[in-house]
């Protein structure tokens, strides 16, 4: 645990403890639940290891985004394209690529009546819209054949108002800030059984668009599980039970942070669970207790760019929305709990205005913001990943630590 590490460091190296207390300089991982400290090991080689980088992203203004390269091919051919700047997101499921970044012509997925299938996926402050197409996907040396992906585009098919719901789209480089999203979270399909049947229970993600004027002609369609946009890891031929995001500790703010996205859990010599504590997440959530408040739907999400949680005692920034701006850095603590597992996490929230004042920095360990209410969610975003290897096991997949879904760190 980090506090133990700080204690040990304090006992041995007082000057080092000062750095750790300032939120920097700590090089060990926080994944030990025993009394020994562990050192974070980041895999750098192997067929299941993809390099990732926290940087400004392809639009040059992303904060706390981890980006990977993904290769997509016309199924069954060597007609391929490698696209960088794809956001690694453990909080969503499936591969999405903006249409302007895509140069290979992927086959369109059609419904049984021949009409193109187009997807609407809601996010917290936006939505994605665009056709479902099929690609062979390769990341590192891992391959998945005929993967349904979403091609993000506002122009190929006009967007139904039932999809936009007043939100802005995030389908272009300037509105997404990335060339795409690689959703490698706890689930396989991005919708699941709810989207299979039409009718009142269908949440309305998949549309049939008989013409490009889909705003008037589109209808919500039932989408079989095998047709739905899916976490490509679940379709890899090997190392397909989950991922590990491995990023080193960050000291304050940094321009670039390099790490690895490792595929498989306990399937190779470089992806063992080791001493990581397993937090089962039967409903894609565990419980976080913060300042005596219980957040029963809490989650770990590399696609969130900060720690997001409600705390009315920390001032929010006045000039930028959605971030905290305390007058001095808040050193905080919370406890994560799941069946048979519990652990304390120390973290800090600094003044976002002060962090962002350094325009060249893109990785911040102390970035946080409000989560609003209902107060069920404590969102452990990318800063949580700095300095610890975080395992995400896919639902229904077996690992040496049990069957997913779970997180471990």
């Amino acid at each position, binding site marked *: 645990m980090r506090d133990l590490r700080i204690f040990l460091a304090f006992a041995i190296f007082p000057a080092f403890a000062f750095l750790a207390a300032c939120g920097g300089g700590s090089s060990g991982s926080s994944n030990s639940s025993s009394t020994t400290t562990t050192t974070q090991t980041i895999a750098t080689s192997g067929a299941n290891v993809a390099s990732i980088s926290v940087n400004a992203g392809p639009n040059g203004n992303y904060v706390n985004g981890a980006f990977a390269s993904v290769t997509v091919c016309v199924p069954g051919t060597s007609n391929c394209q490698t696209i960088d700047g794809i956001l690694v997101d453990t909080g969503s499921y499936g591969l999405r690529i903006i249409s302007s970044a895509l140069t290979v012509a992927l086959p369109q997925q059609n419904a049984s009546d021949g009409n193109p299938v187009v997807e609407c996926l809601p996010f917290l402050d936006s939505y994605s819209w665009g056709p479902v197409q099929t690609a062979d996907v390769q990341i590192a040396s891992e391959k998945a054949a005929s993967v349904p992906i979403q091609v993000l585009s506002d122009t190929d098919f006009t967007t139904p108002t*039932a999809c936009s719901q*007043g939100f802005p789209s995030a389908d272009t480089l300037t509105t997404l800030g990335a060339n795409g999203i690689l959703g490698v979270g706890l689930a396989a399909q991005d919708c699941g059984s709810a989207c299979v049947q039409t009718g009142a229970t269908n949440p309305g993600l998949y549309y049939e668009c008989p013409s490009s004027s889909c705003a008037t002609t589109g209808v919500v369609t039932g989408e079989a599980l095998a047709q739905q946009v899916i976490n490509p890891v679940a379709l890899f031929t090997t190392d397909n039970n989950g991922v590990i995001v491995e990023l080193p500790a960050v000291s304050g703010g940094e321009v670039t942070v390099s790490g690895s996205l490792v595929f498989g859990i306990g399937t190779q010599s470089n992806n063992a669970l080791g001493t990581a504590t397993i937090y089962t997440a039967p409903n894609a959530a565990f419980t976080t207790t913060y300042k005596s408040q219980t957040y029963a739907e809490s989650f770990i999400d590399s696609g969130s*760019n900060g720690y997001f949680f409600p705390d009315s005692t920390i001032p929010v920034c006045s000039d930028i929305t959605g971030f905290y701006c305390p007058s001095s850095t808040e050193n905080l603590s919370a406890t994560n709990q799941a069946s048979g597992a519990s652990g304390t996490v120390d973290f800090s929230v600094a003044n976002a205005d002060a962090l962002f004042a350094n325009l060249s920095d893109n990785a911040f360990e102390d970035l946080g*913001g409000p989560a609003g209410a209902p107060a069920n969610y404590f969102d452990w975003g990318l800063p949580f990943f700095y300095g610890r290897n975080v395992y995400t096991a896919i639902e229904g997949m077996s690992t040496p630590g049990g069957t997913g879904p779970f997180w471990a760190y």
Partner: protein
Amino acid sequence: MSNTCVRKSWRLLAIGAALAVVSAPLPARAALGGDSASVQADQLHMQGSLRTTAAAAYTMHEIQGASGTVVREYVSAAGASAGKVFAVAWQGPWRPDMRQILGNYFEQFAQAAKSQSKSRMGRKPLMIELPGLVVEQSGHARAFAGRAYVPDMLPTGVRTEEIQ
């Protein structure tokens, strides 16, 4: 004192249909800022079941939607906003029909949602805090929770923490 009653959706559908026949048609949408009749309109729209809980300053109508998302609508019991929906909260695998639940506040919400700063980009919860309207949403894929309320319509003594 709280009074809770649970009704089956088919019964409310029947009641709603009867109301539509004998009285003026239900508003197509009203929700936030609308009167309690708009709760029934939302309930019909969501094809869900309804549970009502009374607190001192308001009545909370909880609609369990067919797609798994729960919407709670808060109707003021007294004061200037008596009988009006002053807040709406939601939680479930998908966000609700925002146009339906925000009613006349929808355009104001949509304007604000589209004008969020993108100078330093990232993915984070929705936080719209206007003088006359607050809309918040947090969660992740397949798990959404949020709320919207009109600060000026909050009944005396009601804390915003109660809206969830």
